[in-house]
């Protein structure tokens, strides 16, 4: 049935393409999102993300760990899931040694085994591939080291973003990162915590995904 459906649909589309005509005139102008100067990218990303209740904190290469520790302590977070081999893994483990009640849970097994743990942790920490200033967006390409659900299941998502990886627009990000040549199994654009306005258009945060998104921008 299936292969017949396929050939019948394609046959119909072929003949429809002949009778339906198909000249599409070239565009006179094409649209590109407004450019953003490199010096203004961090600020714009911060502004846009704060508009959708994202906490954006600035840090340096040598002190993001301290800031992260403070953020976790101020929320009394005790369990954190992360990718053990992520670039910040060592820093995270070092931080915990000084600053103890925290339990770090590496996402090291398949979800079938890790599921119950993951659904019960308080926060997930991930790196990012970059950011997009125009819309206040994080770019994540989850992989074996940092799986897809780290940024979705825990009620708090903390993302580390390098300031020099903030692109002006989605178009620029796609071009410079080489999207298309080799798409990862999953790519994500994340612009804020989970939200809904399905009841009376009243905006509420944290419906299925994280209730809080915290971005640490490392300059």
């Amino acid at each position: 049935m299936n292969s017949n459906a396929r050939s019948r649909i394609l046959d119909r589309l072929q003949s429809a393409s002949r009778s339906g005509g198909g000249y599409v005139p070239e565009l006179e102008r094409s649209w590109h999102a407004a450019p953003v100067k490199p010096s203004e990218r961090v600020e714009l990303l911060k502004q846009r993300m704060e508009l959708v209740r994202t906490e954006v904190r600035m840090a340096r290469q040598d002190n993001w760990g301290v800031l992260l520790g403070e953020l976790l302590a101020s929320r009394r977070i005790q369990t954190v899931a992360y990718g053990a081999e992520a670039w910040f893994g060592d820093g995270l483990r070092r931080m915990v040694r000084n600053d103890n009640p925290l339990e770090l849970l590496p996402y090291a097994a398949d979800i079938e085994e890790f599921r119950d743990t993951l659904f019960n942790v308080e926060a997930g920490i991930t790196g990012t591939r970059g950011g997009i200033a125009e819309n206040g967006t994080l770019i994540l390409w989850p992989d074996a080291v940092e799986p897809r659900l780290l940024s979705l299941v825990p009620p708090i998502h903390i993302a580390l973003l390098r300031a020099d990886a903030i692109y002006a627009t989605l178009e620029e990000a796609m071009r410079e990162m080489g999207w298309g040549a080799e798409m990862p199994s999953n790519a994500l654009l994340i612009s804020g915590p989970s939200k809904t306005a399905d009841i009376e258009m009243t905006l509420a945060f944290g419906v299925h995904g994280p209730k809080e998104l915290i971005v640490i921008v490392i300059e």
Partner: protein
Amino acid sequence: MPKHSTFDFKAHARAALADGLMRANVRSALDGLRAKRLAVFPDADELEVMRKQAEFSKRRALVRLPELLEQLERKCSENGIIVHWAETKEEGNAIVLDIMRAHGATRLVKGKSMVSEEMHLNAFLQEHGIEALETDLGEFIIQLNNEPPSHIIVPAVHKNRQQIGKIFHDRLGTPFIEDVEKLNAIARTILREKFRNAEVGLSGVNFAVAETGTLVLVENEGNGRMCTTVPPVHIALMGLEKVIEKLDDLPPLLRLLTGSATGQRVTTYVNFISSPRKEGEKDGPREVHLVILDNGRSSMLADHELRHTLQCIRCGTCLNHCPVYVRIGGHAYGSTYPGPIGSILMPQLDGLKEKGELAVASSLCGACEEVCPVRIPIPAILRRLREESNEPAGTGVVLDNGCSRSMLEVAAWKGWQMLNTSPRLYAFALRFLGRFGHLLPAVGPLKAWTNVRTKPHFARKSLQQLAREEGVRHE
């Protein structure tokens, strides 16, 4: 109007107009959505350039549709996504059921998919002993109440918080509350357990990129990501018009989709799925299936005018701007897709006999075309469908064309033609109307007209006559 139709749009519309609460709920939500859309596109010139580009991308994709679908299939297969083709709703439903059965699965969690509504998938699966659970908050609410969505983006737009609190209380046994945050929290708690234990997840597709074999899904809640990531099997449903050529087409399409739909610059999540879980990866579905549904779409492509229907990206902004939809809400349309887009889509999907009346549910004010992000000429297609209903059967291309043709109406227009082409007859008719016009009984179409309008008064003398008697006084 065709008498054999089982769907009585006028009765539905009258009932909706009498429902003050529903009208107030819809009105306040849509007023808000229109204002937000306007705010997110502050530069009208830029919006025009963007719309033209989006239209261009979609039209060019339609010109190359068969070839792009084959490319999409090839790329998806290379990436490990299993592609299925369904000519009809029944075939689509059967494919989903077969996949569920192959895994011995009885629990399905669903992200938002209008194609699944079009297929009536939930009812079909329930008949076969499968729980199909909607997880988008709006869809979850109306599923609890056994209703179809009344808006393609905001499914529960016709309900207010008190009504939703009542639904939760009645169906879930929670204490009655009307606090939106708390209602959301209830849904979150229930659905997280469902996500955790689901066997198969289902989603729609906003854009399918042929160049890379990538499915693009846009959402705010995270339920779509849950459905496509947690369960071991993911089934994506798409109408065959969702394919686009390349990733480069996306930036304006995404900006227009989210801006037009909800007035946002961007949604919380844009999810690009190109393959199931790869070797070494720790999560994501082990199997991804893509079901490509035709269900009448291929025949729209065959007509140079009707094919524009397939440009639609389902943003719902034509609903929000339609003076008819705003007043009667979505259920009155009795159709999967309501509003202006539904009025051009449903008659083509279900035939003019069943849904041709929807093409008349418009004042042809043109607002829908003006706001459409891909510039679909909706009013022109509405007129075309009206014509197809009334022209002799066999001269049109849409199912049941000619079904509303009435000999009385044909005769009336014939008479009108004679009247206007014979000066003597015309002059006689004018004198007759001037004298006896006020006596015309309000029956038939005249009654329908005068029900809500004052009956016209005919002048005793025609303009021509006056001019002849008095001369032209003003140069």
